[in-house]
């Protein structure tokens, strides 16, 4: 089982997230190709409601304690409640550019 899927499985079980991204960023670092050392997690869960960031991060660190001790070198965490996630995307919606006419554009 890959470290990536272990992280996914443990976070899914512990936080019942509405959204979860586990991204292996190891290739951006000075490690061998195919490494599983550096990860980024984006997680949206209502378990985080009313909790400060440090408490959310501590909760995730606790769930992944074994992996952090043995395998993970860096773990970037971006934690949101449903409302925070919604507000965040309301302000930062990734918009695709509009069509400018393409092949039908008149000269």
């Amino acid at each position, binding site marked *: 089982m890959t470290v990536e899927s272990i992280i996914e499985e443990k976070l899914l079980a512990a936080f019942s997230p509405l959204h979860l991204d586990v991204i292996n960023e190891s290739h951006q670092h000075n490690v061998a190709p195919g490494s599983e050392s550096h990860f980024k997690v984006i997680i949206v869960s209502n378990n985080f409601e009313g909790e400060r*960031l*440090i408490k959310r*991060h*501590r909760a995730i*660190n606790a769930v992944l304690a074994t992996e*952090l001790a043995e395998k993970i070198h860096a773990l*970037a965490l*971006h934690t949101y409640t449903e409302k925070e996630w919604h507000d965040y995307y309301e302000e930062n919606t990734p918009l695709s550019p509009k069509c400018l006419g393409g092949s039908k554009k008149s000269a």
Partner: protein
Amino acid sequence: MDTIEKIKEQIAENNILLYMKGSPKLPSCGFSSQASQALMACGEKFAFVDILQNPDIRSELPKYADWPTFPQLWVDGELVGGCDIIMEMYQQGELQTLIKEAAAKQVSE
């Protein structure tokens, strides 16, 4: 002095303290670099410890702090968090407030 005592003393004596890899001018890790830049942008003096030069602290602090990674920002004797928390607080303007208040306390002490 034993390492934990040394850590406690550093945290007690420095209201704003960043444990990082490298130095703010020459960081050795992207996360430490981001964290120290956000802290510098707050415009107050802060202390730092390069954990790459202090392997004893590097191995003991995660246990003491119950926090597995670096950088670690400590303000007023409490762990604020690592790079992601520092950046998010900075973007929300919370870090600037926290740091300014801590710096004011350090001066008045």
